[in-house]
């Protein structure tokens, strides 16, 4: 029985791309276009893996992520996070938390700080992140690592 992967992303083209990649590699897919819809669908029919876009307008991927972790029935579903800035977050250890010292790019700083906090709490790991534009081979590799074929 094929594993089911749910994609939550506000960008329809991005959803199409990911679904094409996943289905081509034998996975079943579900799609949602914002966090609320995604969580509702997950409760109706459990998925084996969730691919979650971070930068969404109504509710960011992190908020959705924390909501899932608080939900007993959903907290064990593995998650891959999609970001446009994953590559530039690799060097985050070398920077301080003092955003005043580097006041520009506050959005990126906020993102970096959130990831750092979540990582310190053991909730996220660097390998959970997938950078945009998505490399199909890299994505499938990570999916297989988490849930197998």
């Amino acid at each position, binding site marked *: 029985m094929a594993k089911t992967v749910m994609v939550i992303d506000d960008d329809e083209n991005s959803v199409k791309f990911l679904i094409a990649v996943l289905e081509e590699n034998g996975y079943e897919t579900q799609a949602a276009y914002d966090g609320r819809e995604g969580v509702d669908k997950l409760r109706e029919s459990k998925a084996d893996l969730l691919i979650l876009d971070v930068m969404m307008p109504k509710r960011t991927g992190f908020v959705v992520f924390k909501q899932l972790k608080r939900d007993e029935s959903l907290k064990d579903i593995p998650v891959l996070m999609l970001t446009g800035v994953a590559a530039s977050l690799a060097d985050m250890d070398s920077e301080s938390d003092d955003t005043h010292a580097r006041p*520009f790019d506050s959005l*990126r700083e906020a993102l970096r700080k959130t990831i750092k906090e979540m990582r310190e709490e053991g909730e996220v790991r660097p390998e959970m992140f997938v950078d945009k534009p998505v490399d199909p081979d890299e994505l499938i590799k990570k999916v297989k690592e988490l849930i197998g074929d």
Partner: protein
Amino acid sequence: MVVIVTVVILLNGLFGSLFSRQYALNASRKAMRFDSASIVNGIETLMMRQRDTGVLEFIEKTTSEGATYQDISLISHPSGKICMSGEADVGSFLGMGDKTCNRCHDVVDSPSRNFAAQDEITTGRDGSRVLRVTTPILNKPGCRTADCHIHIDDGDVLGILETDYSLASFDALMRGLNATLTAGALVAIGLVIIALVLTFRWFLAKPLRRLLRGLHTIGSGDLSFRFSARRNDEIGLVAHSFDQMATRIETQQNELLKTLESLQGIVENTADIVITVGRQDLIRTFNRGAEQVLEYARSEVLGRPVQMLMADPKERDIAVARLRGHDNVMNWESRFKTKNGNIKNVLLTLSRLRDREGNLLGTLAIGKDITTEKDLQRKLIRSEQEAAIGRAVTAIQHAIKNMLNTLKGGVYIVRLGNKKQPQPNERIVEGCDMIEEGLTQISDLAHHMLRYAREWTIKPEPVDLADMVRRVAVAVSQTGTDRNAAVRTEIDRSLSKVSCDPRLIHMGLMDIASNALDACLMKDYPNDEGPEIVIRTRRDESKGVAAIEIQDNGIGMTPEVQASIFVPFFSTKKKGGTGLGMALTARIIDLHDGKIEVESEPGVGSRFCITLPLEGPAKRQGEG
């Protein structure tokens, strides 16, 4: 005073002389009258005895006894003189039948019984002064009984004795007395004058001279001088008034000095800059605040033109123009240049200084150093600008990556669709390859461009360069494993931590090392040689720098290429190069006050050398 004393002495002498003279004269008169009366008694005795010749002898004898008598005359009525000294008988005594004087003369007005002895000073026979004593010879009871005078009453005058006493001795005595008195008066006057002179000198001239010296002392500035006189006279009053005046002046001067010191203290101790210039623009006042801000000692600027303090000497003309017609300029932002050449932003208030008549004396400038505030303001503005750029950069990055993601997804779906065709179209595959290559280039360009736009401040911290170099070497060697590229490190252990921004330096080193690997991958090596990259650290104590060298044995560069590698958008790579990597690296090194140099030979290889100051960046930090 002297005149009064002199007059008193002279009058005393004069009256003393007169009184003495009169007293002596009166005494002489009394004596001479007595003497004359004695002679009359002698004559009367002789007459009683009726010895006329005895009378003459008696007179002769009497006058011959000394110089006292000049002349003695015995006169009887009516024949006049009957006897005179020194002469023979010139008449005869009264006979019994002769009439007495009061027989002829009226009883009333005749010099009868009331006729008393009298005297007068007159001229004697020889012309000298004589006292002539006239003594009456009266008919006495003895006479009445005599035959010759029985017929007349008692007390009738029978004749007179006129005796001239010489006054030569008396006059000589008086002259001597006068001379003595005059000499005494003169001596007394002299002594009085000497005493007065001495008194004047002691009581007046000396205190006056002291008073003058005191005035001179006070005039020369020593206000502590006091007479402290104990005298109660006019001099004492003058000295006391003088002391009071000196005390008042001293008190007022002390108050003035205190006020002056207080004002000077305010000017001197304020942290603000206080400078005054005269009409010729020469500096007259330069307080401690000015010394501290402008780094000049007061002695270095006083009397020199104020333009020396201005960052732009033209600002002096601007200030003068602003002052024209107003006399005051408030809150004018100007720039001063310190002794060490630093520029200070100063907020100035300028005021014209005028005297009471309104004549221009100069200009007062009170300033506040606002360099720090201006720097903060500039930093705040830049920070806000950078924040806005940062937000825009992130938003653009996000948007571009989403667009690239869509394009990539589209290409993926086209490829997928083509692959599922019974006969896949090669042209579609080729087109998709081209599109994906273009997407990669756009992705890299966006990444570098946004970084280039964003990275313009550094955040230095102590960094272990050896550790960083090892990590770079590991990363590059992993990338180059498929071509068997050898990556080595040579670490100088004397190099301790260096102050730099680790994120940016790491990025720069990675960029150079990646280029080195690319240069190696583009070269066809002979059999006995393979791609090799060496990364070295070195401490150069003489230059005070840490050096990092990245050497490769790749294809190398021509001098033309070497000259252009740090120019933005210059790239020699046929595929994938954005031309921003080395430009960004050069910027990063420059922000660290470091240098980046390159040596290269086509076909042999290249060597990049980065030097960073051991003490860390200084000048660029915080500048935009």
